[in-house]
């Protein structure tokens, strides 16, 4: 149990992670590892603790039990003389800056342009030169396909564009690890594709990512590993095809067939409408 315990080569190693809010135990001993350049998709019903797990990694919440290492550092605590000490705020900020996080509700800074959003952390956290930060920010905006929107305020951008700026903002700190918490669930269906596209190319470039998502298609195509959580524990994990198509656990199967059913139901209304007009003469 030394601090230097990820010599194993894992980028993220979570051991017996538990978290309670008052009486409510939300995570009940989660173990998980993520290798460098690996893409892990987290799946699970609402309330299963997926968001909480990501927030623990990024220290938006404090651990109740267990340990999380990112790289070679224990997250949130330092061990001195055999006791854990809470890290100082400065140290926590430094650890966070090594991890990029993208939220469901993009949380762009509304009083800054897209460019300023992306430059903010490099300039004020890394103390990078403005000119250099601007250069890099423009490159990142180019990468997410928004070089022509640099001077727009968030309110002037569509949801999909905002989410892509948020991704660029997280990438600007050159994080070792990217966390995505349902990055497309607040988007209109026609905007989902553009955000998933950006994430797909990030994955191709070898970015280490943990992605909470309900986009089963994306998970099947991009993920190296799929982890299914329920009730605060990891129920099963494995390759996408294993977990999504041949789940071993009953809970996984129930969840996936409900997802499937909902999609089918949603499709039905539109299909019917289209069918009504099927006879429409061209």
């Amino acid at each position: 149990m030394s601090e230097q315990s990820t010599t194993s080569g894992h980028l993220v190693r979570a051991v017996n992670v538990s978290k309670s809010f008052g009486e409510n135990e939300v995570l009940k001993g989660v173990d998980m590892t993520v290798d460098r350049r690996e893409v892990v998709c987290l799946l699970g019903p609402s309330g299963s603790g997926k968001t909480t797990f990501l927030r623990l990694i990024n220290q938006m919440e404090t651990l109740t039990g267990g340990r999380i290492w990112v790289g070679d550092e224990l997250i949130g605590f330092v061990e001195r003389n055999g006791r854990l000490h809470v890290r100082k705020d400065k140290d926590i900020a430094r650890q966070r800056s090594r991890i990029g996080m993208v939220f469901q509700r993009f949380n762009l800074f509304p009083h800054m342009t897209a460019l300023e959003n992306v430059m903010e952390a490099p300039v004020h956290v890394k103390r990078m030169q403005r000119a250099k930060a601007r250069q890099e920010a423009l490159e990142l905006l180019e990468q997410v396909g928004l070089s022509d929107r640099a001077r727009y305020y968030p309110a002037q951008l569509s949801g999909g564009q905002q989410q892509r700026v948020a991704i660029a903002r997280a990438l600007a700190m050159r994080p070792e690890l990217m966390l995505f918490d349902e990055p497309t669930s607040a988007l209109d269906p026609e905007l989902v594709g553009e955000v998933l596209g950006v994430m797909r190319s990030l994955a191709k470039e070898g970015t280490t990512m943990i992605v909470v998502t309900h986009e089963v298609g994306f998970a099947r195509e991009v993920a190296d590993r799929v982890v299914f959580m329920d009730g605060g524990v990891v129920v099963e994990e494995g390759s996408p095809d294993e977990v999504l198509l041949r789940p071993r656990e009953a809970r996984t199967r129930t969840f996936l067939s409900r997802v499937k059913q909902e999609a089918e139901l949603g499709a039905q209304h539109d299909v019917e409408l289209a069918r009504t007009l099927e006879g429409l003469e061209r």
Partner: protein
Amino acid sequence: MTEKVEAEQALQQEERPGRIDAVPVRHYGRWLAVAVITVLLLMLLNMLIFNPVFNWPFVLEVMNQAPVIDGLLKGTLLVTLLTMVLGVVGGVILAVMRLSENPVLRSVSWAYTWFFRSVPRIVLLTIMGAAMGLIFPQGIALGVPFDWKLIDWLGLSGDWRFLTLDANTLFSGFMGAVLGLGASEAAYMAEIARAGILSVDVGQQEAAQAVGMSRRQSMIRIVLPQAMRVIVPPTGNETIAMMKDTSLLIALPLTAELFYQVSAIGSRTYQIVPSYLAAVVYYLVITSILMVGQSYLERRFGRGFGTTVKSDKAKAEIGLQAGLAK
């Protein structure tokens, strides 16, 4: 087999880290602030109790004087009540005028509000008390306007006024207090009432008219009850402010008023600190009661609007983390 499994479990349990019991970060700066504040508080307490100038028994005696209690009930509470009634009624009328399509009504309402919101109340009350009789030496008459001109033209004599009010009676004492503060309050309430009416979704008005309600009916039964949600909280604040502003009546002057009465005792007994303290204690008590009343009213008027009262706690916690960095 079972033994082996158990042993393995035990081993694993040992290896698996359990509950976290970490040494928290010491916030020395924060505790220093607490220490300083505690000492200051102790000094304040020490002063309040042991400084003979405060003379608490005398404070209680002052609070118990008949004219002081009378001043509190009449000059402070009753005046507050009456001015707020006047203010709310006047404010709603002014708001409706302000939202009228008639430019004359609109500008008059604007000018009234502008004037009364621009002049300090103490100046207003001083002028009312001292100058109204000079401005209206013949009193304020109800009758045919410009009658003297008309009578002159027609070659008649006499006047065409059926009721003349003495400006000095009208604008002094209790009547003057209520009129002056009420007229001023109407200007403030007008803005509040206007905001309240405008806050109600246009669709509500339309839905009411669609089922055949008249404009007046839909105003009274649909729009105003919903506007109340927006109007009541600031009206509570206005009431508290008005209660405090009755102390300005010393400029009118209204003698049957709390602050005037304690000042009188102070100047008579030369015990000015405990005398003023008596007023301070009363103001603290009444404001506190009004604040409780207001929070009750706010809750009452949220009826039917779902769970708008979101937990501020999570927000507050973030704010606190942010605010007290280092």
